[in-house]
């Protein structure tokens, strides 16, 4: 919430500028066939992303507190994710999760207030990562080009997420439905990553926007 001094100085609060601003050229590119582009690439922005982590006895406390404040319990199984996106919670490491939602509130503060008393660590990563959503019939081919996990429709199903290298960058990949994936990469690499994804997608045709 902008404080009054800003208003007084006549300065509008600054909006967020994504790492990919100006880089997404809306339209169809590459070799799409009569079915249209094989994949649609959109940027998800602005997002709130907050990492929560606890140790030992703090964990149970944190899970309860998360449930209370988010209405959602962080998933116990490694490499799984829960939630419809408002928020979605992704497992990112032992006793560590990433809470993600479209920016609408100060999620960092909400979680700090709720979880820090129980000993958890809460870290705002909302600006540290860029996120692309890839969807379409060729999306798994693009994952196969970039990363070595088993992307078969039988093997990597909705509700699974994984951290791996994709096009030589660390990436967090979240399967939303059979042909939709959210991918998170470090903000600074976003442009390089988008270039790699679009190159890989060119043979199937891709839609940006």
């Amino acid at each position, binding site marked *: 919430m902008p404080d009054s001094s800003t208003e007084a100085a006549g300065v509008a609060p600054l909006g967020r500028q994504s790492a990919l601003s100006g880089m997404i050229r809306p339209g169809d590119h590459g070799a799409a066939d009569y079915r249209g582009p094989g994949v649609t690439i959109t940027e998800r922005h602005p997002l709130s992303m907050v990492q929560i982590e606890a140790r030992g006895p703090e964990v149970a406390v944190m899970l309860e507190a998360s449930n209370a404040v988010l209405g959602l319990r962080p998933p116990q199984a490694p490499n799984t994710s829960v939630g419809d996106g408002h928020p979605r919670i992704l497992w990112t490491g032992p006793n560590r999760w990433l809470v993600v939602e479209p920016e609408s509130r100060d999620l960092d503060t909400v979680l700090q207030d709720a979880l820090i008393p129980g000993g958890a660590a809460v870290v705002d990563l909302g600006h540290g990562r860029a996120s692309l959503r890839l969807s379409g019939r060729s999306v798994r081919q693009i994952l196969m080009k970039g990363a*070595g996990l088993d992307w078969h429709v039988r093997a990597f199903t909705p509700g699974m997420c994984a951290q*791996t290298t994709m096009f030589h960058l660390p990436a967090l990949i979240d399967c939303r439905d059979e042909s939709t994936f959210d991918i998170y990469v470090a903000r600074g690499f976003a442009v390089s990553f988008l270039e790699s994804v679009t190159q890989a997608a060119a043979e199937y045709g891709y839609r940006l926007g």
Partner: protein
Amino acid sequence: MIRINCPYCGLRGHDEFSYIGDATKQRPASPADATAAEWHDFVYIRDNPRGPHQEIWQHIQGCRAFVRVLRNTLTHEVLATGLPQDDLLAGASGPAKTEEAKTGEAS
């Protein structure tokens, strides 16, 4: 590609990991009391066997966990994995077994 069973993430290619080294080296628990020879041993001396070797890898591109790996250095076969404090030769292994890891490479 060596495929390493991360106790959390399941079977992953070794290119997701960073190799740390000999897992049998214990850092002196009481640094001031350790002799120069003990420090030398910890920092410089390696077991380096031809055959099963306990070593530490970090799943640096994944969950960032440090993983103890028992691997045959002659064949590159991974014989067991666990948490850093596990003694894999004793047959003990980490609490988080691979069964709960659903997203590994293995289908």
